[in-house]
């Protein structure tokens, strides 16, 4: 389901992608039946948005570029004084 969501989001206009991804993630959380599924929303540097699941993360930067990969590809630090994603160089860009 997450893969489908990413495929749909990447076809949306860049400025709408983060909001669209949030709505898809909420739907997945509500409909996941096999086991509870939850993604943690975190602020990210330079206006990006991040969602961190049990094992994988998705980041959408301010330009609408989408990045995904396993959780060890993000770095968690302080973003505006709060916990957030400070880097995601270990994630792969979704073309």
């Amino acid at each position, binding site marked *: 389901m997450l893969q489908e969501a990413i495929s749909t989001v990447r076809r949306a206009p860049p400025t709408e992608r983060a909001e669209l991804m949030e709505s898809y993630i909420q739907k997945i959380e509500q409909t996941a039946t096999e086991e509870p599924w939850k993604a*943690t929303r*975190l602020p990210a540097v330079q206006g990006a948005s991040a969602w*961190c*699941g049990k*094992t994988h993360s998705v980041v959408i930067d301010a330009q609408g570029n989408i990045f995904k990969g396993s959780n060890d590809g993000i770095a*968690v*630090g302080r973003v505006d004084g709060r916990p957030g994603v*400070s880097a995601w160089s270990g994630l792969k860009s979704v073309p």
Partner: protein
Amino acid sequence: MSDFFLRQEQAKSYANAISDDSERVFTQAALCRAIGFLVQDLESSSHFPECPFDLLKFVHSVHALVKDKKLVNDALSGKYKNFEDIPDIFLTRFANEAPATSGRAFAFCGADSARVFERDCRVKPAAARR
């Protein structure tokens, strides 16, 4: 790079360099799972935790644990479905390295990663034999 997960890059490098396939996959999965757990903790806490988590120490401990094949086999069997089911060896190992609740989270990472290992590692050799 990160001021909350100490030595994350080193932890990742260490896990990636483990030569034994099953130990490497298990440890990598545990690292990803640990980060997911800890991020959830961050979201639910109202303040920035004062004690960062040393992920390099974590992967060292996980690697040591997964060398215990009996423990791994027990975890693979699905024996540890709840935090309460996790044997003391996990909890005592991490008790000195993180607050007690996070110790349980770390421990569960190990148990859960065993199932990831089962899915990702056990299937491949069978497929290769075809």
